[in-house]
């Protein structure tokens, strides 16, 4: 039973448009949420995080939104660039920032078309 789900395995977006990647979770104990980006033949890299006390966190072109009542988070990339093409994983933890208790989603492959 996957506690963190990314239901879209892939997404294609035109350069300059908004990319929206979605993630749902089932465990009410999750308190901290993260997004990672992964290029082929490389390991994941941390992108952005959000605590459950917030509903939005921005970092440049990347914004994460959290809807606790719906147990849903999303990552918005505006504007999308070809270099953003990668696999994006969402992850959740019951303890802020604890790598030992992370649960990952299965990932969404984003392709940004020039």
């Amino acid at each position, binding site marked *: 039973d996957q506690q963190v789900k990314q239901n879209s395995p892939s997404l294609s977006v035109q350069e300059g448009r908004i990319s929206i990647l979605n993630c749902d979770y089932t465990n009410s104990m999750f308190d901290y949420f993260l997004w990672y980006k992964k290029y082929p*033949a490389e*390991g994941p890299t*941390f992108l952005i995080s959000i605590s459950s006390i917030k509903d939005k966190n921005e970092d440049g072109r990347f914004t994460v939104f959290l809807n606790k009542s719906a147990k849903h988070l999303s990552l918005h990339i505006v504007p999308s660039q070809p270099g953003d093409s990668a696999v994006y994983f969402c992850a959740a933890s019951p303890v802020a920032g604890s790598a*030992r208790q992370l649960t*990952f989603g*299965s990932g969404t492959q984003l392709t940004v078309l020039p």
Partner: protein
Amino acid sequence: DAGITQSPRYKITETGRQVTLMCHQTWSHSYMFWYRQDLGHGLRLIYYSAAADITDKGEVPDGYVVSRSKTENFPLTLESATRSQTSVYFCATGWTASTDTQYFGPGTRLTVL
């Protein structure tokens, strides 16, 4: 100065064989982690280490053994490989156990025939 390296990058082995995946870091980070990533699944933690000679189980430790005699190395051994252990294995390091300071290696793709 590669930071974190994994070797081999690709490995094919047979059921029942012992396999060791190596992870090496040059940062002297205290924490090191091993994850596996399977098709259609996210990363799952196998083992982690808080310091040399201190290791602990993660979510999916069965069938794996780790050791950490030196801060910079964290080998992962499959004592008797099974087909279900076919996966991509990622090592990660960090100054703390915090997710925000983790650095992942490039991964080892292991196929067990």
